[in-house]
């Protein structure tokens, strides 16, 4: 509005359009900023990986213990072309991904249900709360040993361990999410005649969803950790088994290669979760820090 009247008063004096000029300058500035960010990223990657390669070639760092990028690449190629002692890499990756995925689902499901239940029931949360805190302080990864002793070397104990790790992350977030529900909103729908079920469906769950979804990012990482650690503890197939085998044969390059593979899987899963987040939380106001000042 102001720029419009501004240019009107100066009609005929100057043919400049300040609005579009400012827009152009802003666009150039933004492009320059993103270019500099990408240059920085590439430089960082080259410095780390290149330095690693250089140091190990020169012998300042022993590649027998710490591996070498070029040899990690070779191991990766070997894993995908020749496979492993336990079948093809795809087979093993499939098993691990399956364990992590089902563990993630199970843990999230139970975490959300219990979190919402305890979050909305003060008495229950007061009774169960301390025990959950105690269990949370136990190093749960050790449960993997018990699960393997109890359920054998199959897929199930891995799913269970992944689920246990995921559960606590999701549970605490769901619990907190329910606690943060705007009480005015609850009072409002109750006055309008909502049943407890309707309050949960229309207010509590959508409101806790922000918290729950935020926890899923971390939770998937935990699911992968759970599956891998359980495999290292004892398995017949899986990336964890390949890792523990490589450890036994003093082969750090294969361990690193497995790490790369898992990282790719996790990033993929992360992007799916991001998609879900955008879908479910599209009502949220845009993050202020995202809109950079021009």
């Amino acid at each position, binding site marked *: 509005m102001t720029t419009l009247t501004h240019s009107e008063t100066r009609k005929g004096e100057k043919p400049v359009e300040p609005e579009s000029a400012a827009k152009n300058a802003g666009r150039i500035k933004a492009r320059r900023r993103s270019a500099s960010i990408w240059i920085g990223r590439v430089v960082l990657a080259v410095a780390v990986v290149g330095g690693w390669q250089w140091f190990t070639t020169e012998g300042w760092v022993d590649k027998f213990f710490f591996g070498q990028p070029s040899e990690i690449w070779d191991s990766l190629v070997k894993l995908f072309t020749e496979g492993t002692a336990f079948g093809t890499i795809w087979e093993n990756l499939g098993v691990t991904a399956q364990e992590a995925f089902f563990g993630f689902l199970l843990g999230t499901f139970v975490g959300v249900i219990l979190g919402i239940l305890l979050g909305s029931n003060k008495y229950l949360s007061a009774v169960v709360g301390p025990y959950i805190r105690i269990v949370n302080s136990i190093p749960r990864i050790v449960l993997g040993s018990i699960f393997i002793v109890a359920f054998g070397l199959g897929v199930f104990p891995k799913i269970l361990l992944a689920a246990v790790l995921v559960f606590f992350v999701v549970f605490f977030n769901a619990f907190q999410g329910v606690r943060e529900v*705007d009480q*005015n*909103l609850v*009072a*409002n*729908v*109750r*006055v*309008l*005649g*909502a049943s407890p079920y*309707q309050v949960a469906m*229309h*207010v509590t769950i*959508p*409101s806790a*969803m922000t918290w729950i979804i935020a926890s899923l990012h971390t939770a998937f990482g935990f699911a992968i950790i759970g599956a891998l650690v359980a495999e290292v503890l004892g398995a017949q197939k899986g990336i964890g088994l390949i890792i523990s085998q490589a450890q036994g044969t003093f082969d750090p390059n294969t361990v690193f290669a497995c790490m790369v593979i898992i990282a790719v899987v996790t990033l993929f899963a992360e992007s799916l979760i991001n998609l879900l987040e955008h879908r479910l*939380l599209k*009502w*949220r*106001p845009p993050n202020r820090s995202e809109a950079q000042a021009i």
Partner: protein
Amino acid sequence: MNITPTPRPPGPPPKAADGARIEVSGLTKRYLTPKGETFTAIRDVTVTVEAGQFCSIVGPTGCGKSTTLAQVSGLETPSAGSVKVGGNLVEGITNGVSYMFQADALFPWKSVLGNVMMGPILLGTPKRQATDLARDWLRRVGLAGFEDRFPHQLSGGMRKRVAMAAALINNPRILLMDEPFGALDVQTKAIMQNELLKLWEELRPSVLFITHDLDEAVALSDRVVIMTSSPGSVKDVFDIDLPRPRGNVQEIRHEERFLELQGRIWESLKDEVTRAYAVSAGAA
């Protein structure tokens, strides 16, 4: 229950049903603090709001005004005394009540339309019908064309309009308003007050309106109740005999009768405010 607001012809305001009379008698509410002590929020409050009357409650901060509303709505149960709506004792949530808060209690994850639709949906109205009704109400509060926006995309005044449409869509017998315009700037506040009066004159629910703003109370109400500082009880009740419809609330402020009433009520309120301030200043 009739949920479709029937368009009413202009003329004398409709006579509200007797089911909307609110009788609060001897109402006392004590809360248990986490330490196990009891805290009396309101003591022996007795107020009557006739059906279709606009009643304001004014009092110093923390005198239990909101507590009184919570008892009327049935969200809380009184420790002593009773609330009757339309002659029936309030037990559990009162039927046909709508709430409006200072913080706009809108669903941030629902569109404007979705927010306004909530009332009929919770009553079990079919979705299509609820949508039509909500569209109609958005038009009535001047928000046609904003149906698909989310609350965070609206200004404070627009959010208030949405809240107002959401509160009135079920054609409530009773409208409970807890400082609804407290957070608005002065101009928006005046606009919203006029808007509220207009809609109230069409629907004529009984209104219990909490405010700190004495001008607002006098300009809008038929009856102003002054409450004492904590524990709250009724100090004075003033009937406001300014003619209806009131017209523009900004203009009515300059009328002689308004100033006279406002002056008298302020005399009564002043002591309480000073006392409440002295207590809070002493505690700080």
